[in-house]
């Protein structure tokens, strides 16, 4: 098999091909002896990893394997529904990684890991060799938790929109086209899923929007849980703004113990059946499926047959192979599945890899999750989680802002949320 120069660059990394100026970072005089670090996945975890590794080391060779040419941030995407945010504003390409950070971008899908030969197989059939591999694919969804739901439906008539992008736009369109007095039904999952308060934030953004354009419409949240992050804030504000728990409530929330678990979907007639046997006819349905580790993590054996990927608490090394690291929403960490956490896990991995390559013992990791969520454009709240390394696990300390009627305290946290989203996007992609 003969490879063209272009293919050589693609698969070996530009630094392995002398004199290349094709990617605009030929000035970085990488040695052929520099280690080659490959990251699978260009979401927040993979992007933060590549960026922070480059900041710390000018010479290391970095390759990112990501099938999509663009990334859309999930944080902020709930505000697309009330018109305060646009998908364009949340969407980034990888040009900065190619030029500024000198990352060799391969637009392809990783399908397997050959641990013995230390290489990743791509969908195209080619291989990328690595010295250290970081896997940050995000989660996949358990569609059949609600009988009748499927990936096909999610991509067509019934978007979950739990990965921001075209599905978000589709769901927004469906809500905007809902008849006056229509019914929006959401199914919120159990188990660990991306951004614990986000289903309720989304429902709130939709209610805030409907209040203006479709004031008699209803939002119903069918939950597979009996409580959720910031629940007291949401109940308090929904009562004040949307008549929560009254006969004419704009938002209703049905807990698992009250029969809220959605078990069956009649997609054609838009009817959801709950665990208690109740059938609810909706105009728009948004099923957020339970999550699990990605198919790639399963196929490559990283999950070791479990739902999530096991890892070493100090370095986020895979339990399968010491040269493979795992970060983000697919990992079995006792941490919320947030982009904030994923980015901080990635910084731990970047440092651990640099330490290992230099023959040093990796330092003690430290991971926080200081997140903001909103109920409306005038009510925000904060959570501060600290995860301290404790040998084989993490000590967790957690604080949540208190429910408040103080308009300043509410508003300033909502503004903080917007500021955080903007700063965070820059932290990851610029």
């Amino acid at each position: 098999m003969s490879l063209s120069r272009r293919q050589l660059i693609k698969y070996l990394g530009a630094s392995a091909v002398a004199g290349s100026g094709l990617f605009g970072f030929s000035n970085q005089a990488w040695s052929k002896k520099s280690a080659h670090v490959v990251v699978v996945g260009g979401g927040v975890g993979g992007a933060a990893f590549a960026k922070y590794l480059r900041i710390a080391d000018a010479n290391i060779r970095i390759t990112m394997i990501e099938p999509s040419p663009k990334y859309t941030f999930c944080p902020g995407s709930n505000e697309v529904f009330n018109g305060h945010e646009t998908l364009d504003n949340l969407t980034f390409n990888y040009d900065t990684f190619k030029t500024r950070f000198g990352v060799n971008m391969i637009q392809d899908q990783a399908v397997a890991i050959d641990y013995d030969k230390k290489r990743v197989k791509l969908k195209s059939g080619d291989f990328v060799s690595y010295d250290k591999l970081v896997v940050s694919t995000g989660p996949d969804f358990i569609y059949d938790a609600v009988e009748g739901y499927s990936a096909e439906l999610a991509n067509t008539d019934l978007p979950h929109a739990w990965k921001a992008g075209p599905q978000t736009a589709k769901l927004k369109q469906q809500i905007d086209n809902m008849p006056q007095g229509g019914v929006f039904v959401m199914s919120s999952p159990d188990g660990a899923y991306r951004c614990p308060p986000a289903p309720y934030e989304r429902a709130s953004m939709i209610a805030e929007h409907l209040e203006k354009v479709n004031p008699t419409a209803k939002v119903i949240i069918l939950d597979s849980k009996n409580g959720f992050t910031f629940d007291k804030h949401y109940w308090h504000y929904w009562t004040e703004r949307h008549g929560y728990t009254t006969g004419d409530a704009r938002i209703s929330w049905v807990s698992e113990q009250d029969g809220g678990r959605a078990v069956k979907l009649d997609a054609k007639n838009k009817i959801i059946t709950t665990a208690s046997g109740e059938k609810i006819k909706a105009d728009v349905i948004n099923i957020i499926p339970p999550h699990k580790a990605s198919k790639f993590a399963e196929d490559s054996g990283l999950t070791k047959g479990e739902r999530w990927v096991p890892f070493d608490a100090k370095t986020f090394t895979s339990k399968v192979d010491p040269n493979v690291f795992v970060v983000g929403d697919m990992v079995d960490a006792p941490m919320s599945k947030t982009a904030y956490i994923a980015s901080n896990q990635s910084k731990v991995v970047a440092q651990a890899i640099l330490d290992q390559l230099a023959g040093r013992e990796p330092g003690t990791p430290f991971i926080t999750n200081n997140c903001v969520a909103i109920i409306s454009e005038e009510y925000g709240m904060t959570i501060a989680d600290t995860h301290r390394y404790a040998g084989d696990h993490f000590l967790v300390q957690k604080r949540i802002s208190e429910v408040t009627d103080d308009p300043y305290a509410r508003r300033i946290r909502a503004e903080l949320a917007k500021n955080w989203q903007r700063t965070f996007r820059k932290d990851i992609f610029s």
Partner: protein
Amino acid sequence: MKSKNLLTGLALASCLLVPTAFAADPKTDAEITEFNKQFPMPTGKMLGNNCSACHGTLGAEFTEGMPSLAGMDKQEFIEIFTQFRDNKYPTIVMHDVAYVFTDEEIEAMADYFAAQRAEQWPHLNDDGTIKQGRMQGVAK
């Protein structure tokens, strides 16, 4: 089963069920501080990098909302952070962030941010690539 393993098992199990149900570890602040002494303290860089989502890469985001940390005077950082930690006055969120840090950790972060250039991120070379030269806190 050793109690340590049991703790881990519980932590992981509660995560799988409901992440929000994973309450703070039952140990007191003093006990946690004592517990942490069995591991080397995280570096100023490791601690400080957790601030970037709000305060920008290397603390170098200059916005109207959250103050930049890059180039901040060491003593000023220590003073204000300690006041956040001790809840000396109401804040939006920093008292809830700062309460977990020890004096030594606060000083390590102060050193880290004092050594960063007080200049809006990104810090670029003339050709648009990232500067590495004056980057502080990178392990030697």
